[in-house]
């Protein structure tokens, strides 16, 4: 295959080159192979790999967009996987000859990914089978162990662009939770019992079998019904009993407690009636209630499959790092790192432990920890804290503290992470339910007393007591909140907002203060305002600058290149090009010398008042400083609108930023006169600020983006993480939202509030049914057929109402 490398300028100016593999615009260079364009060496390599194995069908499948393989990959990156103790923790099964792994590949995104990953055996015959689970973005690969090492398998996946996500979580033995099959068993068994009990109860509904010869059949049906309801009581409904018991032990009443009480009463009265032959019991209603409640909970939980929450720092850290031993490089699991180890950290790698820099210099990007977007320069002998990322050449470091004692780990061990935001007893349903249970219980007791004492009829008194509990069973209440919240969750996720669970929605509805973190949440990640200050450059000089910055992959260089979009880059080859990481670059242009970079790189004097409000990139030609580019991060254009909508809804807004106090004047008017804008905030200070607001009685929604905010996100009532990759990210947050959807935040809050209204309204509906049923029950006339009709009808009404109402609310608040 012949490839030719061209600069972008050589291409015909008006046609954009779209990479055949990844579908992105070729910005820096265009590679040609087989009449296709490629944006980088990596994409072209994947293409040739696929072509060699006849896998080009990949590109023919609708919507196919390949992934550019990770440029930071190097040989030996996965060598640690072959160490026996790591191997054992990484695989699902092995017998020495065949091994199965079940790996998470976050980059999987379309149906051609499924096709390619299930044809891995063509790329390497040692792969026996590979089966994709697309919703979970996981692939189960079975391969011949002696022929293919685990490290080679990981490298193969990385080479075709699907880097497996291997983290310390896998090492510590915490396996990802399997899809909850037990719940499906329970639904199946409850449904089976419900249907059959109902069928066996039909004669009773129609008052058949009154003559004496049918009494044997009646007994048989009773025994069968009882037998069918036993697994429902002991297996299907077990979760309600467990949850109710643990709530009672914690001395509070949750929604499951009255359910458990009602279920027990119904079951006991049914047994009593069957044994004394006074009636058929209410076992059909009993099994039906359990079935409907289980289905409700299933739908509620299904919405979250595929969104990850509750990752801690371990999920971000790599599992192994290169360690230098007598000059030779080995990979070591980071849990085994000891003080004094010399580690080698390559470009874009995370530093896993506090360490001392041994190399001459390094540029550390702490955006992960502090939110500061610009890399910090470190010199030999400086202490480098865990969580920084090296930008540039590989560096050597000596470990100061073990991973578990590092600064970042300490932050995670803050008490905010230790306390669960468990407020099940505070939810709206639970609060209403408490009064409801009290009322129902007192009605039942009064009914019992009147029948027993006034009418002196203990038989009817007992019947009326239990049937009161049965018809007033709070399962309709449970259904109204589970279905409303479950439906809201799926509406939210269609709008790319992913709350963690129902109680997150309720807390969202109560929000009256929103705290924004600047970095990344309200700024645009790959766009900036750029301005050139200095003497006007000639066209030739602009061409020189564009050509030079086109050579660099530094983010600032890319932004400048984008800014100079209408200036053509030259095809002339630059001689003597050099780039010093974190400082700048230089090259010769014929006889002239061009330098682009930091002030000290080009020899400019930095004005005193420059407090670092924005990034500056200086340009010097022939050692004469021509001026500088001012690069200011750009705010999301919809920000003023979003903030105004929040203010209209009576919500106060605050800004906390880890950055320097740039743009205070620009942001202050947007955030309103009462707003607080705080800069230079450390993670602990953010956490304290949120805690202070809560002490004033506010319900705080914190919008953050990184691990640096994790403490504050956890402390706040609702921690909202902004991320463009919902699978690859999230500190302990309550909700995840995609960056470009942040403008819908006021709509999300409004929808959550209307969700609370819908729950209240459906409670009212179920109350009407309850009053109807109670009027039968207290008089002792609730026949099994009325119970059996009332219960499903009320459930179905509630489900239909909540679904329709919440969809209507969604259309109203989230129309795009």
């Amino acid at each position, binding site marked *: 295959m012949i490839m030719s490398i061209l600069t972008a300028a050589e291409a015909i100016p008006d046609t954009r080159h779209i990479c055949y593999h990844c579908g992105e615009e070729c910005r820096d260079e265009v590679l040609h192979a087989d009449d296709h364009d490629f944006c980088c060496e990596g994409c072209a390599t994947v293409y040739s790999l696929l072509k060699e194995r*006849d*896998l*080009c*069908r990949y590109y*023919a*499948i609708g919507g196919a967009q390949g992934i550019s393989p990770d440029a930071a990959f190097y040989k030996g990156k996965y060598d640690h996987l072959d160490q026996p103790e790591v191997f054992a923790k990484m695989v699902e099964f092995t017998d020495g000859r065949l091994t199965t792994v079940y790996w998470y590949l976050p980059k999987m995104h379309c*149906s051609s990914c*499924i*096709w390619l990953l*299930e044809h891995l055996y063509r790329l390497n015959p040692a792969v026996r089978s590979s089966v*994709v*689970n*697309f*919703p*979970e973005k996981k692939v189960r690969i079975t391969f011949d162990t002696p022929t293919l090492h685990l490290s080679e398998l990981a490298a193969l996946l990385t080479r075709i662009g699907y880097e497996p996500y291997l983290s310390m979580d896998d090492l510590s033995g915490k396996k990802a939770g*399997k*899809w909850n*099959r037990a719940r*499906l*068993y329970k639904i*199946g*068994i409850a449904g*089976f019992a419900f*249907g*059959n009990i109902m*069928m*066996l109860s039909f004669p009773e509904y129609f008052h058949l079998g009154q003559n004496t*010869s*049918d009494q044997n*059949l009646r007994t*048989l049906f009773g025994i*069968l019904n009882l037998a069918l309801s036993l697994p429902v009581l002991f297996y299907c409904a077990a979760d309600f009993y467990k949850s109710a018991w643990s709530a009672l032990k914690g001395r509070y009443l949750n929604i499951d407690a009255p359910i458990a009480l009602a279920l027990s009463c119904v079951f006991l009265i049914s047994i009593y009636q069957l044994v004394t032959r006074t009636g058929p019991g209410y076992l059909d209603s009993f099994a039906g209630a359990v079935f409907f409640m289980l289905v409700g909970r299933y739908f509620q939980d299904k919405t979250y499959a595929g969104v990850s929450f509750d990752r801690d720092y371990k999920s971000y850290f790599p599992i192994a790092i290169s360690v230098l031993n007598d000059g030779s490089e080995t990979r070591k699991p980071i849990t085994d790192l000891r003080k004094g180890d010399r580690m080698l950290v390559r470009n874009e790698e995370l530093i896993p432990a506090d360490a001392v820099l041994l190399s001459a210099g390094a540029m550390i990007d702490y955006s992960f920890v502090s939110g500061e977007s610009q890399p910090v320069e470190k010199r030999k002998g400086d202490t480098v804290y865990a969580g920084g990322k090296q930008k540039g050449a590989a560096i050597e470091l000596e470990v100061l503290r073990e991973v578990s004692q590092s600064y970042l780990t300490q932050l995670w061990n803050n008490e905010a992470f230790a306390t669960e935001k468990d407020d099940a007893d505070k939810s709206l349903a639970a609060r209403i339910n408490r009064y409801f249970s009290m009322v129902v219980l007192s009605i039942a007791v009064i009914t019992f007393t009147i029948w027993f004492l006034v009418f002196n009829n203990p038989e009817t008194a007992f019947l009326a007591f239990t049937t009161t509990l049965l018809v007033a069973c709070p399962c309709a209440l449970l259904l109204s909140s589970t279905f409303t919240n479950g439906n809201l969750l799926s509406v939210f996720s269609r709008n790319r907002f992913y709350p963690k669970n129902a109680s997150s929605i309720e807390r969202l509805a109560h929000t009256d203060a929103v705290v924004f973190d600047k970095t990344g949440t309200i700024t645009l990640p790959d766009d900036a305002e750029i301005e050139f200050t200095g003497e006007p450059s000639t066209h030739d000089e602009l061409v020189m600058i564009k050509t030079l910055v086109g050579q660099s992959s530094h983010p600032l260089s890319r932004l400048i290149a984008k800014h100079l979009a209408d200036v053509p880059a030259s095809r002339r080859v630059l001689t003597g090009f050099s780039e010093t990481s974190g400082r700048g670059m230089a090259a010769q242009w014929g006889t002239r010398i061009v330098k682009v970079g930091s002030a000290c790189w080009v020899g400019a004097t930095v004005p005193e008042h420059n407090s670092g409000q924005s990034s500056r990139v200086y340009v010097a030609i022939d050692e004469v400083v021509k001026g500088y580019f001012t690069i200011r991060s750009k705010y999301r254009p919809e920000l003023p609108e979003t903030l105004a909508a929040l203010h209209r809804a009576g919500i106060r807004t605050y800004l906390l930023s880890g950055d320097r106090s740039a743009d205070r004047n620009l942001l202050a008017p947007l955030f309103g006169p009462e707003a607080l804008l705080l800069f230079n905030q450390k993670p602990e200070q953010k956490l304290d600020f949120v805690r202070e607001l809560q002490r004033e009685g506010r319900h705080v929604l914190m919008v953050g983006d990184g691990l640096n905010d994790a403490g504050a996100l956890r402390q706040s009532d609702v921690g909202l993480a902004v991320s463009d990759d919902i699978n690859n990210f999230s500190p302990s947050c309550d909700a995840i939202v995609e960056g470009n959807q942040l403008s819908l935040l006021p709509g999300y809050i409004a929808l959550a509030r209307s969700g609370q209204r819908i729950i209240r309204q459906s409670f009212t509906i179920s109350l009407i049914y309850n009053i109807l049923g109670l009027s039968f029950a207290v008089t002792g006339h609730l026949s099994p057929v009325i119970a059996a009709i009332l219960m499903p009808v009320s459930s179905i009404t509630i489900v239909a109402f909540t679904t329709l109402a919440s969809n209507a609310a969604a259309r109203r608040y989230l129309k795009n």
Partner: protein
Amino acid sequence: MSALYLLIIASLTVALGFLGAFIWSVRKGHYDDDYTPSVRILLDDSEKP
């Protein structure tokens, strides 16, 4: 009415059979992934594209 005894046994056996089939399918992982198989069936597996 003794035919009813037979009918009850037959109907319960059939119902139990379906319950068993459901449990078997859950156990075999048929409900673990309800999306990928729908895509997989549409992807050709021909040797030559």
